[in-house]
């Protein structure tokens, strides 16, 4: 077990190192670091001071160590637009993105599992067929366009829900959250649903496939023969057995939600990390871009590491296979 974890940890460190190299090469060799990291409005004295500070007058390998050393200290430069440390800006917006992603994940579970179980239990009913056809649309529809149409219908035409921002927030353990206020919930609903669409479809398909397989197993027949109620069979015997793949896939999809929140946040002006990076890209606020890239890579490496380790605990075959290879 510990060998497996150590191996995975080494791999994680390797990925972060490769990414730091890539970002460094992208910024310092493909592009001109003086243009990229120094505010274009700075005067000559300022430019020279920053060049010294960032070590841009040194040889390239020393520059790389400068970059790494600064990054490890948590110093990834100041934003041109906000004139604040880039890292701080991103960390400030992280809770909003996480809130959106977690609420979407819950939506996928709450909407997807009942529909999937129903479609699996009654595969020939009209409702099931409609659900399955809609779930194909959930995969195919470009989610950004669906987001626009949601704004069009629910915010502009019907006027039921607001179309942008986070609404009222209240602090929870020192972090501002939207889901505890009515106004915040109203703001949260459309973006979270938009982000969840893909995963709702995914959960429906997984649950349906699982249900159809499990229904014909002997232990379900036995439970039925024992005279257990339909509800007990569905919620205890069936659910337990279809949840494993659903939970695994959703765990893996959490990272995807964070990445895709870039799109949803842009459409609904949700003030999270994704909106920040798109704004930064458009405003050429490069320190923020660099900081975002590094943070998101570290975040993903951590998510993947956790999923891998959990997976190996749940399924011993994974770690055994890995040790052999």
């Amino acid at each position, binding site marked *: 077990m510990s060998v497996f974890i150590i191996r995975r940890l080494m*791999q994680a460190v390797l*990925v972060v190192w490769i990414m730091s190299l*890539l*970002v460094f090469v*992208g*910024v310092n060799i*493909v*592009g001109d670091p003086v243009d990229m990291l120094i505010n274009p409005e700075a005067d000559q004295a300022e430019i020279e001071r920053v060049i010294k500070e960032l070590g841009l007058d040194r040889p390239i390998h020393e520059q790389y160590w400068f970059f790494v050393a600064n990054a490890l200290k948590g110093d990834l430069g100041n934003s041109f637009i906000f004139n604040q440390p880039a890292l701080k800006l991103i960390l400030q917006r992280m809770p909003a993105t996480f809130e959106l992603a977690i609420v979407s994940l819950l939506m996928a579970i709450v909407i997807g599992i009942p529909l999937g179980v129903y479609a699996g239990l009654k595969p020939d009913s009209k409702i099931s067929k409609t659900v399955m056809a809609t779930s*194909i*649309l959930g*995969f*195919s*529809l*470009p*989610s*950004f*366009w669906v987001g*626009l*149409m949601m*704004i*069009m219908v629910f*915010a*502009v*035409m019907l006027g039921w829900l607001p*179309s942008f921002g986070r609404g009222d927030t209240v602090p929870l353990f020192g972090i501002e959250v939207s889901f505890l206020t009515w106004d915040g919930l109203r703001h949260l609903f459309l973006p979270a649903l938009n982000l969840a669409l893909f995963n709702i479809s995914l959960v429906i398909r997984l649950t349906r496939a699982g249900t159809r397989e499990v229904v014909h197993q002997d232990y379900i027949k036995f439970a039925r023969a024992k005279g257990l109620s339909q509800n007990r069979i569905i919620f205890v015997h069936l659910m337990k057995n279809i949840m494993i793949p659903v939970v695994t896939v959703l765990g893996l999809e959490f*990272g*995807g939600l964070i*990445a*895709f929140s*870039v*799109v949803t946040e*842009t*459409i609904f002006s949700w003030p999270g990390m994704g909106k920040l*990076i*798109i704004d930064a*890209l*458009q405003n050429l606020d490069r320190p923020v*871009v660099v900081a975002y*890239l590094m943070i*998101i*890579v570290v975040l*993903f490496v951590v998510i*993947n590491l956790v999923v891998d380790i959990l997976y190996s605990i749940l399924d011993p075959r994974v770690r055994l296979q890995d040790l052999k*290879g």
Partner: protein
Amino acid sequence: MSEPVNTSIDSNPEALKVETPFQRFASDFMENRVAVVALVVLIGIIFIALFAPLISPTNPYDLATVSIMDSKLEPGSKSMGGTTYWLGTDGAGRDLLSSIFYGLRISLGVGIASAIVALLIGTSVGLVAAYYGGRTDTLIMRFVDIQLSFPTILVALILLAVLGKGVDKIIIALVIVQWAYYARTVRASALVERNKEYVEAATCLALGDRRILFRHLLPNCMPPLIVVGTMQTASAIALEATLSFLGVGLPVTEPSLGLLISNGFEYMLSEKYWISFFPGIALLITIVSINLVGDQLRDVLNPRLQK
């Protein structure tokens, strides 16, 4: 000599020809009516994309014919000059139907170009990994696994943040995002094929590595590759649209469907829905029809499902 074993032996291609695999393939494909409709629609879309300048009612990027007076007209309204704008006009007075035709051209072009390049690179890498095995294989597949553990949109965003805007840049980004899927697919089927007798026979004939890889292994790995290729083209088109919508994809001079939708976003709040709605429908039809064709291809080409 018509035992099934013979059909898989490379030295006896006649055995395959007798069965005319293409005819069987075509009739299998036709069994699903939805897929046939999707194929017809897809051919129609490709036709529109190829001949956009000839069949568009107006040229939306000819400044001489576009009038700002016609801007934001509703679908079906007539212009000052008497032409009907079936799908309305956008903020600059361009006919939306014509813009969509031209946009399809760019969206499909970028999607297909990137899919082909990714297919070529991914296939070669996957074949090499499967054929040589050992260290080469481990190294390549580790790389593929790591890349696939990041969501495509994130990888594309990182690349475009470094590369900048432009048609070539977005194609490069899409290729880098996609190649790993092809590599993994080809490797999986090549690993199975590698241990078959025809490869052994080819090795005994002392044929070169390259010849065995591309003339013997590759043709037998084609079916899953075709399926993944269709699906990946659809997702490349969707990804390009998303990136262009976000403003990090194509430049304004290459108005793909994603950019058209993005242009309509600002008019959305004043209930001018059509500027974003119709390009989105065009994108949707394209993606869904490619996926439906791909689904049917998967069923037809999967030997396990064959009767």
